[in-house]
Every structure is written in C-alpha cells, then in structure tokens.
C-alpha cells in the first residue's frame, strides 16, 4: 500500500485548475472536488484517479472572497461539484453555466430548456409510484418523446458530512455504512482504507479475504436488484419473481455469514470484526448453487427477445461523453471507460486474486449495461470462490491490526457495485474533523441528462433502472436545522440567486 502523502498544494485556484486540466488531458480521471472551511480560508481539494491510487491537489481561497473562477467551463465533470460547493459554502463559481441550488430547495420555477408548441413539463416525484427512493425528475416533453430532463435531488439530504465531524473514528464506520445502505460494505471499505492509510497499517490476510467475500456478495445483490427492476419495468412477472428470490438468497447468505443482511458491522478499521459464521466449504457450496441458479435465469432472461428489444438502443451514453466525464462503474464500462478500481488501484486481497477478463460490451445502451453487470456477477462468484479457497487455508491469524489514528488526512477508495466510492478523511486528536464521502451515484447521476436521445416516456424506467444508482448516495449538507435550508434572496438581488446563512455548527454529541 502506498504511503500517504500530504495533498499537493497549488498557489492559487486558477493554477490548480490549470494543473487539473493538464492532467485530465494527459489521461488521468477527475474523481471529485470538495471544499473544507479552515481558518485560512476555504480549501478546495481535487481528487484525481491515477494508476495506482488517488491524488489530492489543493488550493485555498482566502477569506473574504465571494467567488472563484469556475472549473466547469474547462471540465464539464465538475458541474455538480461546484453547485454543491455553492450551496454549502455560499461561494460563487464565476462562469458556471447553471448555478441553481442542487442540494437545497431552489427557485420556484425551473427554467425551460426546450421551446416549441405544446411542450409541457411532467414533474415526476419525489413521491413516485412503486417503492423507490425520493428524487424528482422534471421531464420536458411534447407528449411522448423526451428532449430534455432535469433532476431535483435535494429531497433526501440528511447532513451526513456534518454528522461525521466530531465523531470518533470507530463511530465513523457506522455512519459510513449508512450513507448509501445498499453499498454498505464498499463505503465501510473506502472509509477504513482512508484510516489505514493515515495509520500506515495493512489488514491481515484473512481479514482481506473476508472483506473481498462480503464486497463481492454485495455486488451480486446489487446487480440482481438492477436486473430485477429492469424485468419489473418490462412487466415480466416470472423473471422479477425469480431474480427477487435469488437476491433474497444472497442476502440470507450474507446474514448467515455475519448476522446482518447487508454485511454491516463486518469491516472495521484495521481488519474485520469476525470470521464468517459459515465455514469456507459451506460457503463454497452455497455460492456454487446460487451461481448456477442465477446464471441459468440470466440466460433465460437475456434470451427473451421482447425484453432485450426494449433495452437495445435505449438510453445511449456516447463513449466520448463517458470518457470526458469519467463515468464510473458499469455505466462507464458499458460505454468504454474500462476503469475498475479493483484492477487499476487494487486494494485488500485483489492484487493476489485473479479478476478475469473485463466485459467486452461497450455499446453504451441499457443492454450493454445489463450485460456488463451479468459479466461482473460471474466475475464476483469467481472471486468469491478464490477467497473462500484461500480462507480455507488461512491459519489462525489475528483479524485486525490496531488502527489508532491521532491526526492526519488521506483518501480511501473502494469499488462499489455502482462504481468507485471515495472517502477523504481528516482526523485530529482521534476525532474526525472532515469526512467527505463521494459515492459513485453522485458522480454518475448527472449523466442522466444526456442519455435521452430520442427515447419516449415508456423507456424512462428502463434507463433509470439501468443506471442502478442510489439517491441516498447523493448525500449533503447540514440537515438538522430546518432553518438553515430556508432559501432567501436578498432584496434587490438578481432573481433566483439564493444566498445562504453560514452553516450552523455541528451538533455536539
């Protein structure tokens, strides 16, 4: 594991943007942008995905500045990140093309993007039909086609980032697991990697194997959920039922292994909390049965031509756009962005386990995303088998190494089923001063604006399900004082421009 280094500091924000643009042009991937309020101003940190790790570059905006030159005109992937900075800190990225509140309630009427006769906007959400997470889609449509789509994601903001501040590092894992619950293990992994990087420790070998086993089972469950939602959108009752049953079996297997259906409480800083309650032989047998059943049903589903027809050509994400944005996870891989965190920046036991060939599907439509997911399911079972085999041979070794951290800052990552999860953790006096979770959902969800090329309203659930993202992962700012989120615009100011009162202090524990 590479030793952690302090983030490289640029002289000023424009210099930092120059560096970043150069790096991205050279082939690195833009992985995130965050802000931290410090005594000497507002520190902007940019994460870059380089082969072998994540680099952090930083620049500080001196106190008293109202704005900074925006990165979005040069790098479109920073679009939502800068809006979030604006919402959280009140600072204005000058030159940003569309600076409406992203994670707070916005102005009354969202401006129109499409003109023409008879156009109207269908506001879908936040309470939608079916059991889904709350997000609002504003679909501008002339009645059947979807020329444009807007998203409003502020409904579910819970104050995760602020909640982290002041927590002990041990409690931070609990909050990390509950940020994006369906990827609990991946978030816990990313957080623990950050702490382990600060402390400079590496978990013992059996712990790494257990981590891999849980992460891969979580991946299988998430991909089965995506397939189940697609089958449900196509009204294939038998497929929905069978895939739901397989997902239930996977969750019950995880529960038998650790007591929690979602693998919570397993990953702790320094290792894992316990070995699986199932022996490796039993685990292998169960996994084998599951894999056989899942792959048989997957084959039957992909052989249903009426289902495949609905996915072919639906919601295409152009490869150039995916590469420019740095799309993560199966969404990116299906459009040719072959960047898998387990392969390019391996962690835990992945360097020693064989990942197999990457999925060859790269047409960029919903069908390709589903096929990539089936390939990953196969890959996950392969990894699970390897991990279980190795566990068999692992002697009694300790399951965790001490990971007391006094002070420091590092970035940790893990490959969640939705894509790469990044945690930037700063610790002082044994408590977290800043923890920034950047889930793959936050990075990928903005691409929903660009995949509706000539699709009609009935294609919408397929496109949404094929992205497979969790809205809970678009976590946000201070949510405990309802007063903070009241939007107000100063009298005489430009309409729609909202300023925020400074964020309140985190609630003391």
């Amino acid at each position: 594991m590479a030793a952690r280094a302090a983030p490289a500091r640029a002289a000023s924000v424009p210099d930092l943007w120059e560096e970043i643009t150069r790096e991205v042009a050279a082939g690195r991937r833009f992985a995130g942008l965050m802000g931290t309020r410090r005594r000497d101003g507002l520190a902007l940190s940019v994460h870059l995905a380089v082969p072998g790790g994540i680099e952090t570059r930083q620049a500080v905006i001196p106190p008293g500045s109202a704005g900074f030159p925006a990165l979005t005109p040069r790098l479109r992937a920073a679009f939502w990140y800068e809006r979030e900075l604006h919402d959280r800190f009140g600072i204005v990225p000058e030159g940003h093309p569309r600076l409406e509140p992203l994670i707070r309630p916005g102005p009354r009427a969202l401006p129109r993007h499409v003109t023409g006769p008879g156009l109207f906007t269908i506001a879908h959400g936040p309470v939608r039909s079916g059991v889904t997470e709350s997000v609002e889609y504003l679909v501008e449509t002339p009645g059947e086609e979807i020329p444009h789509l807007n998203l409003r994601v502020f409904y579910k903001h819970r104050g995760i980032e602020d909640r982290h501040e002041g927590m002990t590092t041990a409690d931070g894992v609990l909050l990390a697991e509950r940020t994006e619950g369906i990827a609990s293990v991946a978030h816990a992994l990313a957080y623990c990697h950050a702490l382990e990087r600060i402390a400079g420790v590496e978990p013992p070998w059996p712990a790494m194997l257990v981590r891999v086993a849980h992460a891969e089972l979580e991946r299988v469950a998430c991909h089965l959920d995506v397939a189940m939602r697609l089958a449900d959108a196509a009204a294939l009752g038998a497929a929905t039922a069978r895939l739901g049953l397989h997902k239930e079996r996977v969750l019950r297997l995880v529960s038998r292994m650790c007591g929690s259906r979602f693998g919570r409480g397993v990953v702790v800083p320094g290792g894992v909390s316990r070995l699986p309650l199932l022996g490796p032989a039993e685990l292998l047998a169960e996994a084998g049965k599951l894999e056989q059943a899942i792959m048989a049903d997957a084959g039957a589903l992909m052989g249903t031509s009426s289902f495949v027809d609905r996915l072919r050509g639906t919601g295409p994400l152009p490869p150039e756009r995916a590469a420019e944005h740095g799309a993560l996870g199966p969404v990116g891989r299906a459009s040719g962005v072959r960047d898998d965190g387990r392969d390019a920046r391996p962690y835990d036991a992945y360097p020693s386990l064989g990942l197999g060939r990457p999925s060859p599907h790269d047409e960029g439509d919903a069908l390709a995303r589903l096929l990539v997911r089936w390939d990953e399911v196969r890959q996950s079972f392969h990894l699970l088998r390897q991990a279980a085999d190795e566990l068999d041979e692992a002697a009694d070794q300790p399951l965790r190494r001490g990971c007391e951290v006094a002070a420091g800052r590092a970035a940790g990552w893990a490959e969640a089923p939705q894509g790469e999860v990044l945690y930037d953790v700063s610790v002082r006096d044994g408590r977290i001063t800043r923890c920034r979770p950047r889930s793959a959902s936050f990075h990928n969800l903005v691409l929903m604006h660009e995949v509706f090329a000539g699709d009609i309203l009935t294609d919408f659930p397929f496109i949404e399900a094929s992205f497979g993202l969790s809205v809970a992962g678009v976590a946000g700012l201070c949510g405990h004082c309802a007063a903070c989120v009241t939007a107000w615009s100063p009298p005489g100011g430009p309409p729609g421009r909202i300023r925020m009162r400074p964020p309140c202090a985190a609630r003391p524990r």
Partner: protein
Amino acid sequence: MTGYSWALAAGLALLGAAALLDLTAGARRERRERERERREREAREAWLRAAPYLLGAAASACLAVTGAGALAGRAVRVGGAAGAGGGAPATTAGGLLGAGHGWLLGAGTGGLAADRLSGLFLLIAFGAATMVSLAFASWAAHTGPVRRGLGAGYALCLGAVAVVLTATDAFTLLFAWESVTVAFYLLAGFDRDRSGRPAAALVTFAFGKVSGAALLAGLLLLADRSGSLALASFGSVPAGAARTTAQVLLLAGFAVKVGLVPFQVWMARGYAAAPGPARAVMAGVAVNVGFYGLWRTLAVLGPAPAWLAGLLLVLAGLTAILGIAHAAVQQRLQQVIGYSSVENTGLILAGFGVALVGAGIPDEQLVAAGLLAATLQVIVNAVAKSLLFTASAGIEAAGRSDDLDQVRGMARRAPWSATGLAVGSLTLAGLPPASGFVSEWFLLEALMQQFRVPGLGDRLVLAITGAAVALTAGFAGVTFVRLVGMVVLGPGRHGPGTPRAAGPGGQDRRVPPARARQADLSGLPGRIAIVLLSAACLGIGAVSPLAVRVISAGLSPVVPALATRGALRSPWVLQPVFSGFSILSPGWLWIAMPALLACVVTVALAASGGRLWRVRRVPAWRSATAGVEGAGSYTAFGFANPARRVLAGVLHTRAQTRQVSPGDQARTAHVGYSSDIIEVVEEYLYRPVLRPVQVLARQAKRLQSGRLDAYLAYMLIALIALLALVTALR
C-alpha cells in the same frame, strides 16, 4: 294546395323576409344620448340582430312540418303544372309527382314538390335548422356589433337548401345548388379581414363550382337523352355509356359537397372560416343536400356499375380514416369538428356503398340495410354536428380563442356550451347509449353482410371498408376524449398545471369574468337550442324503433318500406334487416344502464352505512413541489402526440429538434422542438397541379388585353365557331 304546401311556401317566404330584414337593419345615427337611452338602444339592437334568425327559426319549423307532412304521404306542391296538383302521392320507388314537360327552360313548368324522400331530408335538415337558428339568434344578440349580411347569407343558405330538397326539375335543382355554393362563400368569407379566411372562402367556392359543373354536365346529359328536364324522367334513359357517365358525374358532384376523398380539402377550413353558428348551418343543415342528392341519384338512376360501387366504398373508407386522423391531431377546436365531418362523410358513404352493391346484385334487403345505416348516420351527423358547432361557438365566444390550449376547463366558464360539447362528443364517438352508437352499430352490421354478396371483389372491398370503419371508430374515441377531457373538464384558466406559470400572478385581466359568462349563448333561445339538440342526440337512440319506421317511410322511393322495416324485429329490438344475424335494443339499454347505475349506487350507499356522505375536501394530490416554467400537465398538443406518432403514415408527421439560442420566447431555451403534419391529398394531388394551372392562368390573362378591337374580334370568333358547331351537329 294542401296545408303542407302552404307551409312550404310560408317557410320560403319567411326566409326571404329574414334576408330582407338583415340587409336593411337600421343604420345607426350617431347622436348624443343618455345612459338609459343607450341601454334601450342596445336592447333594441340586440333584438334587431336576433330577429332575422328568429324568423329563420320559424321558417325552419314550417319547413320541418312540411317534411313531416310529405313523409306521412300528404301532397306537397308549390307551383308547377295545374294538372299535377293534388292527387294521390306516389309511393312506388322512383316516383315523383309532376309530369314531364318541354325541355325548354323549365321555369314555371317545374315547381317544387316533396315526396317521401324529400320529406325525410326536409325533416332532418330543418329540424336541425330550427334549433341552430335559435342558437344563432342568441349568439347574434350577444356578440359584437351589427353584422349586416350574415343573416342574409344564412337565409339564402336555408332557402337554397329547401329548394334543392324540393326541386322537381334539373334547372331548379342547379339554380338552387349554385345558390348553396354562393351562400357558403358568403358565410365562409364573412370575416374576410381575419387571416386565412379569404383563402378558405375561395377554396370553398372553387370546390362548390366544381361540384356544380359536374352536376351541370351530368344533368344536361341526362336531359338530352331523356328529352325533358324533369328529374322523374331521367330514369327512362336506356343503360349505356351516357347513363353511366351521368351517374359518375352526378355522384362526383354530390360527393364534392359532402367531402369525399379527394374532395375533402375544403371542408375543415371552410367550416372553420365561417363565424359562430354559421358553421352549424353549413355542416349540420346544408351538407344534407349532398346526401339527398346521392339518395335521389340511386332512386332515379337505379343500380350503378359494380366498379363504381367498389370505388365508392374504398374512397369512403379512406375518407373516414383520413378525417379522423386529422381530427385527432388538430390544435384548433373548429378544425377538430370540421375534420370529424369528413370522417362522418366516410361512414355515411360506406353505408351508401353497401346499398349500391346491393342494388347491383340486386338484393333489396342489402340495399335497405345499407341505406338504413347511412340515413341513421345522416341524422346523427346533422344533430350532433349542429350541436358541436353551436357549442363551440359559445366556447369560442367565452374563451376568446379557438386554440385548444387556451379554452380549457370550460365547464365552469361556459357550462351550457360545455355540456353541449360533451353530449355531441359522446354521440360522435359512438358510445352507448347515445344515438351515435346505434348508427355505427347498424353500419358495421351492414358491412358485415359481405358474406351474402356473390362476387369476390365486392366481398373484399366490403371487408376492407369494414376494417377501415372499425379503425375509425377507435380513433374517434381518442379524438373526442381529448376534446371532452381538455376543453370541458380540463383545469380551469388558473388551476394547477395551466399554460400560465403557476402562482398568484397569473390573472387574466383582459376578460372580466362576468362578461365572459354572458357571451356563452346566455339568452333563452340559445339554451333551449342546446337542450333540444342534446335531447335529440341522446333520445334518437332511445326511440330508434320509431326512427326506423320514419326512415323506412322516407326511403320508400328508393327501397320498399317493407324491406327497411325488416330491421324491426320486435317493438323494442332492432336487427340489421337480415334476421338471425344479431340484435340490439337501444331502448332497453336506456333503461338498463341507468337502472344498473342506480342499483350500484344504492348498494354502495347501503353497505357503507352512511360513510359515503362524510366527504372531506382535499386538494388534488400532486407529489411535486414547486412549479415549473410553462405548462405543468398535459397540453392538448401533448395529448395528441402519441396519435401523431402512431398515424405518422397517414399524416406524414415530421418531428425535429434543433439548437436555438436563448431568445424572447424562453430566456434559457437551448433546444427547439417542432412537429408538423401535412394533408396528404392536398400535398400530393393538388399542389403539383396548382403550378401548371397558375402558369396557364397567367397565359390566359394575356387575353384580357383591355383593347376594344381584341374583344370585338373574340366575339366574332365565338359567333363563327358556334355557327359552325351548330351546323355540324344538325
């Protein structure tokens, strides 16, 4: 002359008086006056404006009575040879009173007479015209300044229709036919300062002339062969090329008036161009002359060649589909209803085509089945179209606009007109228990008799037409649901999801609510008209056995009444003339459906134990929070968009998106979307012909050199040519 003949004469005279009154409505002299005087003057002027139409209503009532009398077998005759007055009415097929006379200009020897067929159409047309006139009177009294000339045009139209329906010789028929064309031009071009109206009036006139020309050619051909101008004598022309040509010409001429493909391009725009309830006069009253002409052609000339019947059926199916496809996607209310007229023409002529096929076999029952279905549909069309156009006139006056997206939620602003629109839509969509359901049932049943027809070609054509009619019925449902859902029941002007931005600032200051409500046919005559027309729309279905008897009496010149009465299986039950095929009982439907509804409601009330009365009013549930710019729920355009896509083959829909720069229309717009349809017949049949015709016309203009010696030379050349022609033909 009998009493009914007096009624005919009185009706025509009243129409003349109405025209005169309208043309000489007192000129207003500007002078200073007090408030009370001003109000009195306005009330007087309202009466003056309404008076011609009230006279017209009385005239229509007289003419309807005439029709009833003729239907009952009484003699009706005005003018004509003395020897032909009185006497027993002819009840045999093809019989008309009035002996054949000299083939010279038949003025004075022809006269007007009504037999049962004429009586039926008089009753249909002027029954509807009475109610339309009442609505017209109310509309004229309450909207706008004096419209001199509109009443004259209206009276001319009605008078010409009456004369066409009672003409006994070719000259009178042609004269009246051309008068109808002129009346249509006057009505359609009345608001000639509004954009698009002069062009529409011109197109209407052009097609009217085409139909007149076809009729002229056909009738003269028949007159020449039969030796007299009397219509009754045309049946004696021997079969041959002349008779077939004349049949084709006559059918074509009448088909232009009713709007059969490819002559339907004038109908929708012509109807939409006329002001207010004048559209109802054109579409609900005057269109029946075309159908009358077709029925009369079948009565006088008998069976048509098989290819003609097949061609008519195919064209009828095409007309129906084209009509409803366009009606489903129009943005203007009047155009939706206008294209629905085209669709109804298709349906009626499908029934008529079945009758033609039956006449060719010959099979009396098939003729009866086809004609019964077609005549029922004529009645439904007359009543429902009048109701729709009347209601839409009220809605247009109340909403100050014709666009479907602007006139939403009219049930609150113009309740009478909105109810009329809903009832008319229900009827034309063919939903039980309205009468449109009965007539479409008869039509489909008549088309389903194709297995009784011996020839394979006939059977195929009947089957294809049947499929087209069924498809049309489906799309009619979609069309009228949009109309009722958006215009009648949609969210009001300031409700959620209206085209204006949500929020308190959306008040419309242009129309004070009180004035808007007043514009909705609020006078008593208008409301009576809507009530009567709605009752007719719903009630004709309920009393369909009676309607069948009346129709069978009216069709007796064409097909024996006994054959048509074969549709009456028992006092309450109808069948499609052929027994043992299927039955329908609209009367029982009218009893059973409300009874079942009452049963369900009673049971629900009883079982709920009074809970149904505890009502808690909550706002409509919308999960979305803040508003969006622009419309937030389905617009009329958006509702029709799936139809636009599905029917892209018929409509040649083209949708495109392009980049636009933010402009005035929407500050932040980046993408522009547009979707267009074209009228295929106009685009591919008429437009290519238009250019050569214009070139020809430009060349011909050279003849109008303005020089006297050129004109004298033309006269000389014409004289010499005529002499040569006459000599050669002698």
